[in-house]
Structure formats: C-alpha cells, structure tokens
C-alpha cells in the first residue's frame, strides 16, 4: 500500500450520491477513493485492495453495518470503519481527520 495516500472505500445505496462521493474522495491529492452501491462490489474491492478507511453511507442498514464492519475488521485489523453523515463535502474531511486522530 502506498503510505502517502489514504485509501478510502465508501458504501451507500444512493447511486447519485455515491457518484458525488467518488469525485469527492478523489479530489484531495493524498486521497484515493472508491464509492460503490452494493456490498458485493465493496467486498470484491476489499479483496483486491488495501483500504485505510471504510465509510458507510446512507441506505446501509444497521444490520448491514454490523456485518460489514465485522468482515472488514476481521480481515484487516486496524481498519477504520465508520458512518458517514451528510452525504457531501460538509463533514467528509472532518470525519476522516477525526477518525485518523482517534483510531
């Protein structure tokens, strides 16, 4: 994994919002992001690439959150898995900086 870059995986069910997330996650020079709408796509990406942070976005249910969090942490101890709130740029940078400081 490129230690200079932060690799972020975002999972949400709203396709239009995830299109925006895909752009937002790849805007900062030191971020590399992938935004997907299905758990299958997320798990396939997770198998191929090492992520530092997983963001669970709108539409992911609490049961799905538990299952996804368990899977990611089992296979990648130390990974940050957290809910993303707001759906856009307002809180995104803050959420990530705070999560990194408090991991």
């Amino acid at each position: 994994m490129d230690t200079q870059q932060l690799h972020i995986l975002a999972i949400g069910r709203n396709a239009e919002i995830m299109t925006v997330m895909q752009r937002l996650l790849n805007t900062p020079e030191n971020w590399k992001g992938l935004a997907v709408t299905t758990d299958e796509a997320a798990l396939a990406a997770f198998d191929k690439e090492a992520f530092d942070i997983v963001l669970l976005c709108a539409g992911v249910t609490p049961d799905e959150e538990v299952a996804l969090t368990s899977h990611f942490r089992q296979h990648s101890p130390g990974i940050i898995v957290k809910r993303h709130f707001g759906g856009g740029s307002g809180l995104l940078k803050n959420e990530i900086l705070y999560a990194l400081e408090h991991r």
Partner: protein
Amino acid sequence: MANTILHKADTRGHADHGWLDSHHTFSFANYYNPERMQFGALRVLNDDVVAGGRGFDSHPHDNMEIISIPLEGALEHKDNLGNTVVTEAGEIQVMSTGTGVFHSEYNAYPDKTARFLQIWLFPNQLNVTPRYDQAKINIADRKNTLQQLISPDKNGEGTWLYQDAWFHMGRFDKGFSTAYTAKKQGNGVYFFVISGSFTVNGQELNARDGYGITDPGQLNITALTENAELLVIDIPLFS
C-alpha cells in the same frame, strides 16, 4: 467534566468565498478543530451571508436533519423532491435528508444580502424517506417569550424533525428575564445569541456567542440590551 462550554463568536471558524461568508461554530468543510466537533446531536451551526443572486448549486445530503433559519432576506430552495419555494426571515426550513436528497439554495434577491443560520443535527433514525417542510413563524409572537420553532412532535408548534430536539427563539426587552428547562431528561441546551447581549445563569453572552450546558436544571436568561435575540437548542447529548 465541565458542564458548560463557551464558544465566543470570534473563535469560530471562518471561510470567505466571496459570494459566501460563513462562520462555523463547529468543525465544517475546511475548518477542522477536534475540540469543536459537536454538542451532542448538534453537529453544524453555520452563520452564513450570501451575496445577492448567488448561492449553493445543487448538491447532496443524507442522514442529517438540516434546518435553515433566514435572519435577513430570503432563500430560494429547489430540490429533487419537487419543491421550489422561497423562505424568508420569519420562516423556518427543515429537511430530513435520510436516504438522500439534492438541493440548491440561492439568495432570492439579486441585489440584497441574505443572512441565515444553517444547522445540522444527527437524526434519531437512519435512512428515513427524505422530506422538506417549512413553517411560517410570526416574529411578533417571540417578544419577551421563547417561541417554539421546532419540536419532535408532528402536531407541535412550528415544524418537526427526526430528533428529540426543540428550538426556540426569543426577542427580549432590555432587563427582561425568563427561565428555560430542558424538555427531555438527558438533553443539553445550547444557546446562540443572534443579536444583543444576555446572561445565561450568570454567563455573559454577546452577539454570535454560543454557550452549551450539559446538565441543565433551570436556566435563567436575562437580556442586557434592547431587542436582544436568542436561539435556544434543546438537544440530546448522545447521538
């Protein structure tokens, strides 16, 4: 742990984009202060000034309760739920963004400044069906009283949202005093001075200062100036 937190106006984050001048009580966008992340479920309190004819292009939100309170001028709101409405000072706008909504907010006038408070709360339910609501508030009715703007009650005064939160505003004569008690056990209370000066339990507050109390009993409020205006946010401390 201290049971109060004071956010003086001049310690807020600030972003000047030309068309938008915004002060952030809590961390937002490029303003990051890990000591200023939220007050319970209150996550964003932005004090925005939008130039005439300008505004926020269409952008998404989800899983947040977003409240706009115009203080001066008017905002034109459009969203993908089919709403196109103008919200003026004296009205209040609430969006429950849930599974996702796109909206734009523009200053409704080409030649007048619009000033408004943009407030985001963490919701008490995830993934709700998005909704938009606005309510007309009679500003005269907040003279020397705390007028309810928002509650969790769909049939309550003002409008409602998906959180056990209550919003009140009051405009007080100099020397007028009143008391406030949190509506729900476990809630904290956050005061934001819109104009003038107050004391809250002896703490002096001036325009745009914020003051949070995490173990509120009876809160005693006194206006120190004429027509002093205060916003009171009664909010769960844990979200």
